[in-house]
């Protein structure tokens, strides 16, 4: 059985493909291969690092916004100052006077200060709207009037930023909003233990404000919620109904073909054009109110409609024909077969598509600017017709403001928005995994 044994190791004849020239050429070809592969890796690295840079910048800028520097002051609530008419009714209080009380408390901390300019500098330590916080406290407990109470009040934006490092205290004096004297006063407050960094509850309980230390997201969040309710109420039923018709009932003719082409193209129309539609039709023609969640929801509903229709059709298409045939074979009408058997099976797919569409709508900004949802709203909207803002628009508004404090607020608001989106997309992925079915 010699032929079974290893064949003789003859030296391989040098052929066209194994010669020196071929080997050399091969080297160059492999170098090209490695370069090409490297380009691919570089592209991926570029894309990923952009996400990393984006997120780390936001985290770096934004996390500090969740904390606020507060200063402890002993404020004497002088009844004569806040209630000049002496009615005892909180509704009649002079709201402006609370800030005066705060200022008075500050002067007491620094008795050596007398000059008008110096006094102004002292006031610069505390937020110019700290009185609002004081007023809210007294609203809750009017019995404090006439007493001297120790309260923690928000520091001014300048101080806040210096404490958090947003502004470098070693900058030349003229380049920072807080001068040397103010720094010295603040340091002495800190030594007395009258300064703390507290969780910024205002950020979650207040609405927009011109003062970063008083601005919060509540109004925009409620606005987003109301708007999304309308969007969902519009786009889900209409989208599913349209998908059911096109997938299950529509005859193949010119009309349905137009609808299909139209839906595909509508999905790619720039969102700002939907804003113009909302402006021209809902506001100007139907006379609906500007800035209202109702109009915003309508516009976004039309915007996400194609997405939901396309996703729902895909989900319906994935249900095997055998299910329909089984139902029809039992004597069900076509509509019954669809409603009782096909639609329930397609529901997880439809929900996944809907959530993804809604996540898209939550981040949409441009069309809402067109219908005036960039209103300056200092309290949460209480109806679908009230003036309102939404999270992404709030981000846009804050991004435009010059104060340093708004930079961190913008970043923090983005973090909140992204958290929302990740939650929604996570829910969609979870749904898809949970109900994934292989026919």
């Amino acid at each position, binding site marked *: 059985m010699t032929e079974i044994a290893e064949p003789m190791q003859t030296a391989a004849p040098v052929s066209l493909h194994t010669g020196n020239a071929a080997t050399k050429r091969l080297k160059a070809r*492999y170098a090209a291969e490695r370069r090409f592969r490297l380009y691919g890796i570089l592209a991926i690295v570029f894309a990923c690092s952009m996400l990393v840079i984006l997120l780390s910048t936001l985290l770096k800028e934004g996390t500090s916004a969740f904390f606020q520097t507060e200063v402890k002051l002993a404020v004497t609530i002088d009844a004569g100052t806040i209630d000049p008419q002496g009615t005892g009714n909180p509704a009649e209080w002079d709201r402006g006077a609370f800030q005066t009380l705060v200022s008075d408390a500050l002067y007491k901390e620094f008795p050596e200060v007398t000059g008008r300019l110096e006094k102004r500098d002292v006031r610069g330590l505390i937020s110019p709207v700290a009185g609002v916080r004081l007023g809210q406290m007294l609203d809750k407990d009017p019995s404090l009037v006439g007493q001297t109470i120790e309260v923690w009040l928000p520091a001014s934006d300048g101080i806040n930023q210096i404490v958090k490092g947003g502004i470098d205290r070693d900058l030349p004096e003229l380049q920072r909003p807080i001068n040397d004297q103010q720094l010295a006063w603040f340091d002495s407050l800190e030594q007395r233990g009258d300064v703390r960094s507290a969780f910024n509850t205002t950020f979650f309980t207040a609405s927009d404000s011109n003062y970063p230390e008083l601005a919060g997201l509540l109004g925009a969040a409620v606005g987003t919620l109301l708007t999304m309710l309308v969007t969902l109420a519009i786009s889900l039923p209409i989208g599913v109904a349209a998908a059911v018709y096109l997938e299950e009932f529509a005859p193949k003719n010119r009309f349905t073909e137009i609808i299909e082409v*139209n839906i595909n193209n509508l999905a790619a129309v720039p969102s700002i054009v939907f804003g113009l539609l909302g402006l021209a039709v809902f506001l100007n023609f139907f006379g609906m109110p500007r800035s209202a969640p109702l109009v915003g929801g309508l516009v976004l509903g039309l915007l996400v409609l194609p997405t939901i229709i396309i996703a729902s059709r895909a989900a319906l298409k994935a249900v095997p024909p055998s299910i329909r045939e089984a139902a029809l074979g039992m004597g069900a009408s076509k509509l019954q077969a669809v409603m009782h058997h096909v639609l329930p099976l397609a529901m997880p797919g439809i929900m996944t598509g809907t959530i993804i569409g809604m996540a898209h709508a939550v981040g949409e*900004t441009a069309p809402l600017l067109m219908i005036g949802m960039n209103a300056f709203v200092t309290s949460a909207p209480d109806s679908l017709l009230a003036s309102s803002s939404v999270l992404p628009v709030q981000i846009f508004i804050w991004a435009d403001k010059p104060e340093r404090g708004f930079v961190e607020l913008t970043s923090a608001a983005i973090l909140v928005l992204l958290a929302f989106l990740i939650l929604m997309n996570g829910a969609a992925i979870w749904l898809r995994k949970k109900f994934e079915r292989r026919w």
Partner: protein
Amino acid sequence: MSVTLTVAVLLFLSLAGFWLGRNRAVAVAGGRIANLHSVPTYYGTYMALWAGLPALVLILAWMALRGTVMDWMVLSAMSPEQLEAWARVMLAPAELEALLPTIADGASALTQTHRQLLLINIGNLAAGQALYVNPGVIDAITPAAGHLSQLRGLADWTLFGAVMALAGGTLAFTWSKIGPEFRARNNVERIVTALLVLCSTIAVLTTVGIVLSLLFESIRFFTKVPVTEFLFGLQWSPQTAIRADQVGSSGAFGAVPLFTGTLLIATIAMIVAAPVGLMSAIYLSEYAPKRVRGLVKPILEILAGVPTVVYGFFAILTVAPFIRDLGAFFGIPISSQSALAAGVVMGVMIVPFVSSLADDVINAVPQSLRDGSYGLGATKSETIRQVVMPAALPGIVGAMLLAVSRAIGETMIVVMAAGLQASLTLNPLASVTTVTVQIKSILVGDQEFDSAKTLSVFALGLVLFLVTLALNVIALRIVQKYREKYD
């Protein structure tokens, strides 16, 4: 009687209709359900639908028209004297002078802007918010405000009455039709199918709405500014003067600088997104081990899901300063609103879009072509560059066109990172403005409704819509043809 309450009562009537219909069906069947054509639920549904739907349509129609009709009624009831008293306080002297000769015609003499101002005054007063109304005009418009409140109350009650009558009428009619022979299920299914058809036409109606609204306002704009000037004019400064005698009152509406600005930024974006998106798609589908693919794909999906306003903030916070500093380092002055910064960030936004489209396209190339190439001794990159890419070319072109369309229509990034100044330049380091930036900046803030400035927005919107539509139609066609080839 508020609309909400009317809707609630209607809902109740509809439910009652369901109950009535079902019971009626059972009754006429004499207790033997088998005698009926359909199950009793269908009789109930039939009545409920008939009770609810027509009245609901009535409510929607009324809500849509209520504002316009009432405004018209209130204004036409105002006397010339009241109008004049209001105008004397609220209007500028020149405007007042223009108005006075025709004031005897009543409210129709007012310009649209003034009419809106007047209506806002009346509305505020009627809502009890006299605070927002100039005290000097309160006397003049108090009767109109009263008229408005009265009309509102009346209108709501009228609606309620009409809805009740309609729903009651349909209930009675359908009730009388129910009998054992009545094909309730077929009737219900016909109604439901009609509703389904209606829903699927909403998408078409949206397109029609977009086209009509853009077209109408654009035509109004083109009566003020010639089309040729708009499309070919080289200067864009839409600031119209408040008073007719001011210098440069007409404004300039040559949109070419906006088009070049848009194209410049879109080009920069594509220079970033096309190679990065394409190469990452190639790497992911042809090279990456499964684990890497599982890790990178979600990252790209996150990039795709980041709202554009966040990218805009990223541009002004990080990228624009970085590019400016980089320029300063090399001694090149770069505007902090450079087209480069906006374009690069927009490119990053489009990368996942390009890569996911390209991924689909590359995967559609049959494996047999790759095998053929490997079988001849080609390396992977040779196969990709010389066989897969040429085969996928139409699909890739389609994907790129879709990406360009995306870049042209993108708003927030350019609104935040690009400039407002319309300059005719192709220098990526300079500040340019785009179509979408102008639309946003003109519309946000105070608007006068029939000025050329405001109307120009719709002409810009029309151009934007037509261009992106054309790109999409072509791209989708190419991609579809491509798919068919390999299916």
